[in-house]
């Protein structure tokens, strides 16, 4: 992370979103919206005084899934890169009611800007790497049998990571969200939303088998006299050193139970999990203090809209579509746009890193050239036929057509005169052919797919 921030060739634009992409391979024009941070990061030294003094201290911290608290002016998390705070406008008293402004008073470098507004920046780039990642499947709206999120001690795997983390709300001690007590029995349920056509997604999320094995191992090694129960459909450990890692969790004492949990309900301060042990062919009941769900990966919010904006397709689940599942796994159907990580489909960290390096190689290959050969199959205008009506101009999705003055020699008693005709910018034209049906005088033609050629094909079929 720090390496990326410090690299002289890398520029970070955080708290920013891409709002428009135009152009084509080698020559993209991208508009980026920089959201207001209300802090001038050029001046801010990241000293942290503002965060200490901010009186709005009890905002549930999104980074810890509400298990911790933060101030209105804050870092996403203490080790954020860049290590400079921004103001959460929705919770800041000054921005919502006009009162307070303490951070502005205590800031030693006068970097607070309550009048900050969004800034739109135009970028010119030759290649784009999509790395928008994933979100967690919203199990709370789908799984009534696990309590629809009603039980505080039924949490997701990512929430459990925060409980394990030294930088998390509990300082790395596993504590129940409900009463802060250390759990003894922790139950894990795999495939929550994955491999479930009726309530979730049909695909396997690929990382859950392994991180659940890791979680079970951590429970067994961090909590004395603990039990870790893992309810599973299958154990999938296809990866280098993965099976060995799963065995390590088993050797540590994790208990694997083959069955789907049909219901979770509270009994006292415990949670009861009803399931079947399909290997024994009998129903079982497990009493747990904490339940961790391995919830599925789904495409990040806004990913589908972004794909549309950049100009490539997504699959039935919203994952970015690769150009070929085996031979072009990092390319998209949009030339010059490449895929890295889970935006293309669920995967774990080793696969993500490998694909990211693959995408980087594709970009380097492209950028190593000084110029790019363009397809000659582009539109052309027969100026003798063009009436200059301009109907083709707004139809072109690449803004490749414009109306230009054309000078006629004259004759038949007329002197020379000028008139308007359509002109194609052949480096912008992508040869899609959308302009052809708009041309009433058949002045437009697509090289390699001329009207004459298409008519010949139809004739060959029908005559």
């Amino acid at each position, binding site marked *: 992370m720090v390496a990326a921030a410090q690299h002289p060739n890398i520029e970070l634009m955080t708290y920013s979103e891409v709002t428009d992409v135009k152009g084509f391979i080698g020559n993209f024009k991208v508009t980026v919206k920089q959201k207001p941070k209300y802090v001038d990061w050029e001046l801010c030294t990241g000293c942290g005084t503002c965060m200490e003094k901010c009186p709005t201290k009890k905002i549930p911290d999104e980074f810890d899934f509400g298990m911790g608290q933060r101030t209105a002016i804050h870092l996403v998390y203490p080790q954020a890169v860049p290590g400079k705070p921004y103001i959460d406008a929705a919770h800041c008293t000054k921005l919502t009611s006009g009162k307070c402004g303490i951070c502005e008073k205590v800031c030693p470098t006068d970097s607070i800007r309550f009048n900050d507004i969004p800034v739109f920046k135009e970028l010119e780039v030759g*290649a784009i790497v999509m790395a928008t990642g994933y979100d967690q499947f919203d199990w709370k709206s789908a799984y009534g049998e696990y309590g629809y999120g009603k039980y505080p001690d039924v949490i997701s795997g990512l929430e459990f990571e925060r409980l394990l983390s030294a930088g998390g709300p509990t300082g790395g001690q596993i504590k129940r969200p409900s009463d802060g007590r250390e759990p003894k029995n922790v139950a894990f349920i795999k495939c929550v939303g994955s491999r479930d056509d009726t309530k979730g997604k049909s695909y396997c999320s690929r990382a859950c088998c392994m991180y659940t*094995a890791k979680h079970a191992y951590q429970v067994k090694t961090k909590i004395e006299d603990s039990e870790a129960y893992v309810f599973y459909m299958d154990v999938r450990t296809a990866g280098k050193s993965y099976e060995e890692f799963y065995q390590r969790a088993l050797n540590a004492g994790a208990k694997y139970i083959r069955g789907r949990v049909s219901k979770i309900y509270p009994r006292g301060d415990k949670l009861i999990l009803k399931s079947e042990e399909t290997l024994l062919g009998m129903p079982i009941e497990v009493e747990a203090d904490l339940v961790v769900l391995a919830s599925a990966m789904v495409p990040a919010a806004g990913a589908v809209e972004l794909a549309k904006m950049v100009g490539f397709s997504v699959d039935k689940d919203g994952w970015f579509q690769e150009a070929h599942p085996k031979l072009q796994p990092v390319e998209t159907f949009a030339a010059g746009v490449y895929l890295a990580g889970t935006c293309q489909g669920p995967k774990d960290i080793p696969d993500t890193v490998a694909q990211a390096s693959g995408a980087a190689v594709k970009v*380097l290959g492209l950028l190593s050239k000084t110029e790019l050969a*363009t397809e000659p199959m582009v539109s052309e205008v027969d100026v003798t036929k063009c009436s200059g009506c301009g109907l083709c101009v707004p139809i072109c999705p690449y803004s490749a057509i414009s109306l230009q003055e054309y000078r006629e020699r004259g004759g038949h008693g007329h002197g020379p005169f000028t008139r308007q005709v359509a002109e194609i910018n052949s480096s912008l034209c992508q040869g899609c052919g959308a302009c052809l049906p708009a041309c009433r005088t058949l002045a437009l033609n697509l090289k390699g797919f001329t009207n004459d050629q298409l008519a010949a094909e139809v004739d*060959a079929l029908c005559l």
Partner: protein
Amino acid sequence: MKKRVGVFVCECGTNIAATVDTVQVAEFAKTLPGVVYSTNYKYMCSDPGQDLIRKAIEEQKLEQVVVASCSPRMHEHTFRKAAAAGGLNPYMMEMVNIREQDSWVHHDKDQATTKAKSLVRMAVAKALRNKPLQVSTVPITKKALVIGGGIAGMQAALDIAEGGHQVIIVEREASIGGKMTQLDKTFPTMDCAA
């Protein structure tokens, strides 16, 4: 418009040949106007297949080439190169998709073969009107954009930056790092994620 057309029908192993009678299609092609040479082969995209196209262009003095095989997305570039190797303008190669749009989507061999013939007939009619096209070039902006600053975005950006090019990472949160920063230790090595 009297041009010498060669037709090359690919079997794609059994991908095409199991559903389309490629011998019949190649024989049929010989009856089409302009076609002076026609043949079928097991893998037209292979080295011997491309060689077959190149040699036929030279020996039969072909002016147009029609390859009936897979989607142009798969091998258009391959066959354009083969046409160029035979001395033709690469855009004098016309491709017919008798795999994705025929053999893979039909079961009845007779009807699939009839469809393949129709597709070849159309392509020959088009090929007769193909004109040589010239490739032009555009400059490249030597800068990359990475959308998303998680582990995938950071890794891609670092590799591109190490390769000597400018990279911009656009991240919607106020910090890079993504989901990975929320993780504790990671499998299978149990090293720290942050």
